[in-house]
């Protein structure tokens, strides 16, 4: 029997993996993938809460759909920026983003 706890643990683990990836990865696109994992763990949370705690209303599902849409928009802008950096630098490594510092 899969209970709410299982989903929450999965989401928490996914969130931590995503955070780890976003902080440690050197490639900007990989950082984005880590952030996507974090956002999707939130979606799992929301849908699981909706299913187990308040199945009568679909608020959690609606929230999850909004998050997906906004994340897609964010990634579209982010990837466009990464491409524009890549044209100048021939690199997508975040370590090369070093014009602005201290």
């Amino acid at each position: 029997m899969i209970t709410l706890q299982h989903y929450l643990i999965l989401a928490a683990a996914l969130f931590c993996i995503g955070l780890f990836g976003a902080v440690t990865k050197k490639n900007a696109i990989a950082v984005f993938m880590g952030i996507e994992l974090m956002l999707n763990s939130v979606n799992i949370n929301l849908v699981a809460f909706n299913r187990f705690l308040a199945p009568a209303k679909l608020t959690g599902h609606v929230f999850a759909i909004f998050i997906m849409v906004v994340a897609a928009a964010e990634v579209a802008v982010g990837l466009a920026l990464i491409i524009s950096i890549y044209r100048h630098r021939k690199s997508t490594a975040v370590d090369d983003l070093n014009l602005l510092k201290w």
Partner: protein
Amino acid sequence: MDFSAVTIEILVALLGLVLLVTGLLLPPDHKKANGYIAVVGLLGILAFSLSGDAGRSGTFLYGLYTLDSLSKYFKEIFMIAAILVILMSLSYTKRFREGKGEYFSILLFALLGMMVMVSSNDFITLYIGLELMTISFVILTAFDRSSLKSSEAGVKYVLLSAMSSAVLLYGLSIFYGLSGTTEYAGFITCLQSGGLGPALILAIVMVLAGFGFKISAVPFHMWSPDIYEGAPTPITAFLATGSKAAGFAVLIRLLLQVLPSQHVNFSGIIIMLAVLTIIVGNLIAIPQKNIKRMLAFSSIAHAGYILLGLVAFTGMGVGAMLYYIFIYIFANAGAFASVTALSNITGSDEIEDFGGMWKRSPLVTAVLMISLLSMAGIPPAAGFVGKFYLFASIIKEGYVWLALVAIGMSVVSLYYYVMVIRVMLTGQVKSDEPVTVPASLKTVMVVSSAATIFLGVYAGPLTSWTSSVASMFVK
């Protein structure tokens, strides 16, 4: 459905869409006209909002959206900031190779996002407003495609803000799980039943981290110096004023209206954030060589001062915050307009390039001086009155040590502000070329320094306005 609660938002959205069309229709050499349309339109909407026809209060869409005196106050502040920023941009957009028409439209959508944020009465609406603002700001930050710094700032901003909103969302999902609803009203009812335990505290911490990023409170401040330096200067001004004010508006609403029953759990976190922000912001501003970076750290320090109003957690504290945010917008607009005027000529933002500025342009010197002295809190500029109210509100609640820290760091801040003034008055003159200031920029400079002086000398009307707004939070 009562649409009168969202009239202002509808008008701003319409204006943004109109600008998108006119931006395409205008001939390439006259894209600047789009900026004038935006200024005139926004002035009209601001007058409409101030005249009170837009409704005093009300809710929209089954209570998901609310118009009250707090959101109305902030919307008017955002519009003033946007008008000043658009005026600043008029002379700046000639640097952009393309998209001169779209620039103003995206700026208005950022404004719309802020308005949705302050009016939201529901976590989903809040998130949508936040992201509308953030994504628009990312585009604006990276708008100068000829500058590698600008693109780099854009990438950094999008990565870090996406990460911060993921943390914020995790907190919001826990809120939803605890209460089964995303509406503030239902959530407040659920909190009153009590006994929510550590999960609630975790969620509060995550939400505070998410908005701490927006207001650039230490330790969530690392993005702001880089983004402030890389972004086009008018956008830096908008980030420092509008985006920060929006973050504070949401924090005021969440902490004082939704979560006041949990005050004992988060008051320590707020105090820690405020102390760290004031100290770190002021100390790291000292060695900065780039004026935009220096102003970024000074704006971090100011976020710390404004946080003091949340430490006080009273109507008086909120009133002081509202007042401070208002005058802070004018001080920042004046400072960034001066920086824009100089960088239009030299293309550089280094402090040493301000050397001998009073010979080249007395106006730029005077405006920058007034703005910096206001930020430092020297009377008769308005910053003094603002700081006085903030510090008085925490002393009244018994945080004398905190007020002493803030006053001490305020003295430290005087050092790096006066350094800039010293360079302007006595520094080495780099070039004799006079700095000509375009009329639009001149307007911003004159209006903002006049407002700074006026509100410092005659603060009465504004304080009675802010305290009437804040009276909804009197315990």
